[in-house]
């Protein structure tokens, strides 16, 4: 149901009512916007002085771009590791051997249920006591993101293979394919197409979650933008928050747009007999920190 069905093409009274509602909401929203503007203005947050650092090339080359690269590095490594983890454990959950299914299921369910920040803290403190001293911020962040998002991806892989109609597996068996051949040649190629949108959505979650690195002082976009820039350019905290906020929003929205495009394409695709799957909802997957 598209949302504009909720109301009719209005008659004279309806038009009047809608106009009054429009006017009221414009007034209320404008008042709210002005209130925020005035509160910020009272503290001098619109002064050109504190926004000036962002016109400097050096602010970008020394802080923002290295920070962004830190974020992308953590997200890239975690994404690759999580995809591998997800593929292995997702397929293990579909195994014919009960103990393999059981172990994989326990691992996946546990890591999905742990608050990600607790996991990252734990790994951050565990690493030095196992491997000796050193800088473990990246490792802890990547390991935490991998275990958590990998577990969610494992569920997506499982759901994707299950979404392929049973006739496909039966046909594969009928022409005498072995189990591994059936998986490799028939089920997986169709499942991958069906689960692509869900995977990309989960990668958006992963990208956003890299911001948790800020709390363990990993040098990412948030750390550079929100800790270092305000420390160097005194008073630029709010402009810095707005600039890096915009960067995060642009990154996430473009990845989400890619996921939506993939989903639309999959719906009309003849490369798979399965419909695009939605991520499993039962443990808060798909909702990032």
């Amino acid at each position, binding site marked *: 149901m598209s*949302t504009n069905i909720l*109301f009719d093409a209005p008659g004279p009274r309806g038009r009047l009512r809608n106009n009054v509602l429009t006017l009221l909401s414009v007034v209320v929203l404008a008042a709210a916007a002005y209130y925020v503007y005035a*509160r910020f203005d009272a503290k001098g947050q619109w002064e050109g002085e504190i926004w000036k650092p962002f016109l400097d090339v050096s602010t970008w080359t020394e802080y923002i771009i290295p920070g962004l690269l830190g974020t992308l590095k953590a997200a890239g490594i975690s994404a690759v590791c999580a995809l591998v983890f997800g593929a292995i454990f997702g397929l293990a959950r579909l195994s014919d051997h009960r103990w393999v299914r059981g172990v994989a299921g326990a691992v996946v369910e546990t890591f999905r249920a742990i608050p990600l920040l607790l996991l990252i803290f734990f790994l951050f403190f565990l690493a030095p006591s196992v491997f000796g001293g050193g800088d473990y911020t990246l490792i802890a962040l990547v390991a935490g993101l991998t275990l958590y998002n990998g577990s969610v991806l494992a569920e997506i892989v499982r759901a994707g293979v299950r979404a392929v109609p049973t006739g496909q597996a039966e046909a594969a068996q009928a022409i005498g394919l072995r189990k591994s051949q059936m998986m490799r040649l028939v089920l997986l190629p169709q499942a991958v197409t069906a689960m692509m949108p869900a995977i990309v959505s989960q990668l958006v979650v992963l990208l956003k979650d890299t911001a948790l690195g800020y709390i363990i002082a990993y040098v990412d976009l948030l750390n550079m933008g929100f800790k270092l820039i305000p420390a160097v350019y005194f008073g630029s905290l709010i402009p810095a928050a707005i600039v890096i906020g915009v960067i995060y929003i642009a990154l996430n929205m473009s990845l989400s747009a890619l996921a939506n495009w993939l989903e639309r394409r999959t719906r009309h695709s003849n490369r798979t007999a399965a419909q695009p799957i939605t991520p499993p909802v039962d443990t*808060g997957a798909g909702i990032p920190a």
Partner: protein
Amino acid sequence: MDDLIKYAPDLLAGFLENVKLSLICGALALVLGTVLVAARVAPTPVLRAAGTLYVNVVRNTPLTLVLAFSSLGLSDTIGLTFSETPSTNSFWLVVFGLSAYTATFVCEALRAGINTVPLGQAEAARAIGLTFLQSLRLIILPQAFRTVVAPLGSVMIAMIKNTTVAIAGGYLMESAFRMRDTFDDTGVSIPIFLGLVVAFMAVTLPVGFVTSRLASKLAVAR
């Protein structure tokens, strides 16, 4: 194991802060999310645009940034304060940030629910002369809520887990901070970590169980 026993009262007190945050933020996020979804389907383009803008901006900003901005930006720089006591102030700042953030996910879940309500329902509501707000309140939202109980439960579980990010908002009483503090003292302790994990699962698993039971019980037969 000794560490866990020694620090258990402290960690439990921290965990109860997470529960408190979850209860307050959960209620606020549900209310704010419902208001947002009403704006997003309103007959007024201005309200629709404002709702869409809010959801897209807040949902795509990392929670860590939202909370850090509430604390360092809104409170320390702009002077938005809820209380004179620093810890109470940061508690309410975290409530503010986490509710504002979670509400966008509540809104999106509800919007998906509204899309499952059959066209005929809205048409029938209009045919008997209900206004937009009446049809939303009496016809559309009750059915939408019933179809999205499970996704809303999922949002709530994610929110409970997200209360640990309160550290970023400068609230240093809850369990993630206390765990880090304890690790600073004693070094890493597996029993303490597992204890907290079990505590969180003891809350999130029943929420998931109850909401999925409710979902099948409340499902609208179509």
